[in-house]
């Protein structure tokens, strides 16, 4: 190598004149980052314990019913947990998961002033909330679609599953239930989490907002004969009822919501989702981004 092409490179600072992404990429980045953080990925084992346990609780019924049917070689149809009633059965686990996911996604940013850092960059409050919403919704899908999908796949592999065309239809129904349930819990939990910076208070708030209305409405209808439509306020029952309807099953219980038309039930869920999203958006619009 001839000597004259020896060169010393300046290791100093280099300007960046490469391409810059379109602003919506910042939303995708933040959504991915938040989802990983909420599930404790890239964080200590301690942060994975809580989400893992809740998911395990939600998968438990599916696991037992699959094992039970595989071991006894035949499906005792009425003993097994049907797809329709699954959302109702894991109601507590869904609330617990929402009480973990949304506060973890929203509260730390405000407490640590990271929100100021994000909003000082190429994000405004609406884009910030869209990113966070996509993250929470994505994670919630794990618990609303996961167990059902697991049951379907397990039954198909074990040979008990329905034939080709029915499986496709079942798959669509699972997705429909998973998405509506995830949307409802996302909207409610994010709305509550926008009111406090302490994750603990937000977690309690989420669970209360989900279960307290149900208690009051139950007494109002059953004891005081209020109209059944009032039952649309107890969100866990409404979204569980919608799941029954989507799978074409009917609940044996005589909860008031079972008397309502499917459109009304779907409308109730939709209204709750919109209300939650609106409350969260209004809160963030007025929020002082600076600690």
């Amino acid at each position, binding site marked *: 190598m001839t000597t004259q092409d020896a060169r010393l*490179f*300046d290791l*100093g*600072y*280099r*300007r*960046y*004149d*490469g*391409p*810059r*992404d*379109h*602003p919506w*990429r*910042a939303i995708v*980045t*933040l959504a991915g*980052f938040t989802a990983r*953080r909420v599930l404790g990925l*890239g*964080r*200590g084992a301690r*942060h994975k314990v809580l989400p893992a346990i809740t998911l395990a609780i939600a998968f438990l019924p599916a696991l037992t019913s699959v094992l039970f049917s595989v071991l006894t070689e035949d499906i005792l149809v009425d003993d097994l947990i049907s797809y329709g009633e699954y959302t109702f059965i894991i109601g507590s686990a869904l609330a617990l998961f929402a009480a973990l996911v949304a506060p973890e996604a929203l509260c*730390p940013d405000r*407490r*640590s*002033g*990271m929100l*100021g*850092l*994000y*909003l*000082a*960059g*190429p*994000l*405004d409050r609406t884009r910030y909330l869209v990113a966070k919403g996509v993250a929470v919704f994505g994670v919630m899908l794990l618990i609303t679609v996961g167990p059902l999908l697991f049951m379907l796949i397990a039954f198909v592999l074990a040979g008990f599953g329905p034939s080709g065309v029915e499986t496709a239809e079942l798959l669509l129904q699972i997705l429909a239930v998973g998405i509506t349930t995830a949307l409802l819990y996302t909207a409610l939990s994010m709305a509550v989490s926008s009111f406090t910076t302490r994750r603990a208070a937000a977690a309690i708030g989420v669970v209360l907002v989900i279960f307290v209305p149900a208690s009051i409405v139950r007494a109002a209808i059953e004891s005081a004969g209020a109209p059944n439509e009032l039952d649309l306020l107890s969100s866990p029952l409404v979204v569980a009822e919608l799941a029954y309807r989507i799978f074409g099953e009917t609940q044996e219980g005589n909860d008031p919501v079972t008397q309502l038309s499917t459109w009304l039930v779907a409308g109730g869920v939709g209204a709750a989702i919109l209300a939650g999203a609106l409350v969260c958006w209004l809160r963030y619009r007025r929020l*002082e*981004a*600076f*600690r």
Partner: protein
Amino acid sequence: MASPAVPEPSSPAVISARGVVKRYGRTVALAGLDAIIGPGITGLLGSNGAGKTTFISLALGLRSRDAGELSVLGRDPETAGIDVRARIGYAPEHHDLPAELAATDFVRHLAEMHLLPRRAAVQRANDALWLVGLGEERFRPVGSMSTGQRQRVKLASAIVHDPELVLLDEPTDGLDPMQRTEMLALIRRIGTEFGMHIVVSSHHLEEVERICDAVVIVEGGEVVHAGTLAELRQGPEGLVIEVDERAGELASVLTAHGFDVTVDGNRLVLGAADDAYDAVRDAVADLGVGLRRLLPRGRTLEDVYLGAGG
């Protein structure tokens, strides 16, 4: 190999503020602040609660002002589009960053948030962390880092996307002298070599004196003094002399030469006189005393600052 281009001055003033007012309920944080912050490194000096952090949050468009004109890089921060905010770097005052995130991941995340493609973000994050002096410890979680290291991580995250303007809020808060000196040298380099405008807020006088080209002193939400350091520094002439013994004798010799001298322990303060230097030198040489300090008695920033403080 792109040499660090000098930032083309889009407009002479990087930040210009006229009559900016900001109130939090009854307390008035900024009461009609006027300031022109030009290119280079500008120190924003003021005691705790003087309005520094509020001004920075207004410049970043994080808060809306109650009155007055404000423009950053030529645009009003509240209505400035996303492209302008992508050209600003910001290191906040607080230290609590996501504790379990490794420094490289944190800086890369902020680079991507400022629209750098993934591969460029990873590469620039590492470069930025090397430049702020974080070697292999940059893979450690931010939570386990000392305050000094965390300040460097914040600085790296503020420059990783190659901004035109960098706002640093109390970057040396909580640092010990060693870390402070290194951080100030680093900020000086960024302001000069990297070709970025910098606004540094601080309440440590000697810091601002060391690295800033100009200073804006804020007190009670208003600008009390502004200008380049040279302008602010000159003041009453005269000399301060410190010897290790027999200061009294030296004083009497100098008074005999017609200088007005006051003695304070082994320190002498000489009134303004142009030919004082040689007279002092010769008097000290004749007496054979040890000359420890000889300094012009210009107004230090401390006098300006304390004077301004009222």
